[in-house]
């Protein structure tokens, strides 16, 4: 014991950082990787943790969002990854399956607030009944609309569309009101964006794009609901109710048309609210759930999970951060207060939702939402040459709905069958 202490002290005097930081000799330094989308709030979270914990120091590294999966995957495969990672829930099945994350099942169930967690998040972090990550930050997709444009087109801003037909009618009215206005917008060349904002139309109408167990998954694109949703977007496109920029928008300029005040309807999530309020503070907007063909609604429950790498030598310290960051007080103060949907139900509905109608809607959307569960999510959905992006391009912009579906079905089967 004494010997260990001497060594620790010696190591401390030798290490410049230790002397300069003035931390006690028992400080454990943990590394945390997060994607660049979270840079707005995550540094505050880390700073707050470091200030309130003298024995653990978190070192945050922000990874560009498009490289996160690759960088993290290769790093943990080479056992040189971080101790902690904040991972997009869409990619959790991949990492949960691969066995590089610590099993948190037992410890998670001991948390007094475990039942408060969003179900969809928990589902995406589970593989074969074991839990490999806890919810970290919440997000959900809803349909935003410009109330000023609705009024100008003679529409009642308090009666947003509840079916696809109503979206089309409202879009026609706004487009017909002239002045270069258009009714609807979406990023046509962005897999992540269309999964977040287009897939819910299929779900809300009772359809789905995948079925089967994670180990034996099949695409179900030939269901009639998928074709119907594609036809719905195709109609909006051929009648010029969508700006031409949509076709080549890979997501980088997705907010510009709606921010310009010339587009009436645009689906996005909580992160979008922050962007819109920052870029276009005078925009008058409201939000409504993404509807099904004949009514009903659905949303994509997104956000991040927090996970511990199996290769980390500081499992206990890492868990302390996980427990702290998912706690009610932290979720309220550092997530809810800055506009990120808290991942504890009570916090979300008690503190976050009452602030305004959009937050209430987003909280509802998250806790009733679902997500894509597939270890090949990236290849199926996000890959810019993948089947999902190609199908939307061929069906919506080129009009070959049936062949686009057939092709994507076979291409998705190919991806799921190989390895």
């Amino acid at each position: 014991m004494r010997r260990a202490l001497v060594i620790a002290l010696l190591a401390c005097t030798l290490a410049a950082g230790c002397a300069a930081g003035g931390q006690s000799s028992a400080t454990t330094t943990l590394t945390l990787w997060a994607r660049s989308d979270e840079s707005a709030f995550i540094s505050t979270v880390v700073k707050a943790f470091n200030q309130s914990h003298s024995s653990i120091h978190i070192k945050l590294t922000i990874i560009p969002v498009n490289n996160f999966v690759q960088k993290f995957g290769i790093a943990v495969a080479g056992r040189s990854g971080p101790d902690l990672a904040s991972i997009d829930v869409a990619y959790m099945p991949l990492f949960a399956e691969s066995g590089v994350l610590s099993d948190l099942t037992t410890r998670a169930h001991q948390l007094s607030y475990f039942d408060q967690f969003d179900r969809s998040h928990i589902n995406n972090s589970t593989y074969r009944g074991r839990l490999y990550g806890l919810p970290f930050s919440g997000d959900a997709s809803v349909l935003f609309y410009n109330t000023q444009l609705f009024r100008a087109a003679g529409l009642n801003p308090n009666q947003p569309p509840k079916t696809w037909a109503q979206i089309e009618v409202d879009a026609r009215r706004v487009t017909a009101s002239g002045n270069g206005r258009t009714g609807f917008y979406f990023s046509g060349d962005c897999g992540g964006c269309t999964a977040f904002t287009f897939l819910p139309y299929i779900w809300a109408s009772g359809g789905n794009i995948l079925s089967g167990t994670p180990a034996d998954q099949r695409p179900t694109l030939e269901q009639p609901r998928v074709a119907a949703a594609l036809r719905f977007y195709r109609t909006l496109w051929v009648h010029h109710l969508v700006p031409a920029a949509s076709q080549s928008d890979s997501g980088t300029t997705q907010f510009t048309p709606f921010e310009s005040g010339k587009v009436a309807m645009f689906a996005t999530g909580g992160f979008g609210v922050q962007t819109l309020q920052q870029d276009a503070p005078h925009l008058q907007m409201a939000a409504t759930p993404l509807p099904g063909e004949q009514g009903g609604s659905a949303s994509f429950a997104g956000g991040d999970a927090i996970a511990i790498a199996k290769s980390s030598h500081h499992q206990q310290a890492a868990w302390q951060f996980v427990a702290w960051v998912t706690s009610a007080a932290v979720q309220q103060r550092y997530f809810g207060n800055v506009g990120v949907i808290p991942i504890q139900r009570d916090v979300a509905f008690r503190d976050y939702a009452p602030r305004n109608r959009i937050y209430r809607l987003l909280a509802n959307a998250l806790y009733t939402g679902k997500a894509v569960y597939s270890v090949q999510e990236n290849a199926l959905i996000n890959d810019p040459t993948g089947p999902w992006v190609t199908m939307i391009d061929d069906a919506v912009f080129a009009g070959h709905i049936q062949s686009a579906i057939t092709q994507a079905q076979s291409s998705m089967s190919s991806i799921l069958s190989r390895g």
Partner: protein
Amino acid sequence: MGAVPASGRSLGGRARPRHRPRARTLRRRRALIGLLLVSPALAFVTVFFLVPLVLMIWMSLHRWPLLGHTSWIGLGNYRAMGSDPVFWRSLGFTVEYTAIVTPILIVLGFGLALLVRRRRRGVGFFRTVFFMPYVIGFAAASYLFVWLLNPDVGLLDKTLQSLGFTSSPVQWLSTRTLALFAVVLMIVWKTVGFTMLLFMAGLQGIPEDVHEAASVDGASRWTTLRRVTLPLLRRTIALTVILAVVGSMLAFDQFYIITNGGPANQTLTVVYWIYNSSFVNFQLGYGAAMSVVLMLILMVITAVQLYLLRDQAER
């Protein structure tokens, strides 16, 4: 060409009767020394080619994620290729790229070699200038072009504008055609010097008296080139064509750095897709299967080329 003795005959077997024990020992010793001499190369090929090749074929028969457990799926990865449109599109693009690059390299390389083959004033300078880009790595050359082609700070657009060819910066990487053009430009600039060097060596190997004989017979320069020089360069042409085709079919660095496969992955080559499958989608087994198929395609192409360009005497 008939003057060269056939190399297959052993020198030891010619003079003495075959059953003499001394000759046998000598032959065995020679064989042993030969084996000893090639053994470093043999070991090198085994460790760095055969073993990885066998491992790659083994991997291609598995579901082999970058992380996690592997499982046997037999020919599953090969079957999946049939319904993978990205593979076929990238293969088509790679063939197109090869078909564009190879003729340019051969014709331009041969032309440059004709220009600088004879010793005269200043020829050394031009030989150096033409060959210099070849010694730069692909990655460094690609980054150089990324900068040259940049619409805001690049040299190319500035030059075109001050010469009055364009009025506004060209977005070089915004369309498939322009992006492909940019890569072809870079590759030709970078590798044509090597083709030139091969042709120079080939031209130097043609005895001067053959050309003299042709001019005595009254052949024009054009006829001499077509009927004498080119047929004698057959081996050099075969070598340069094979090198250019194989190099282009395996193109990766230049597209990875300059175009990033874009716009919208329209300049995705096969190797780029193998890379993406393996290290973005983490499907290493599928990447290995595509590598095996690409290797087989290259073997067939090379075999056909060798057959078509084989020596007159071998026909």
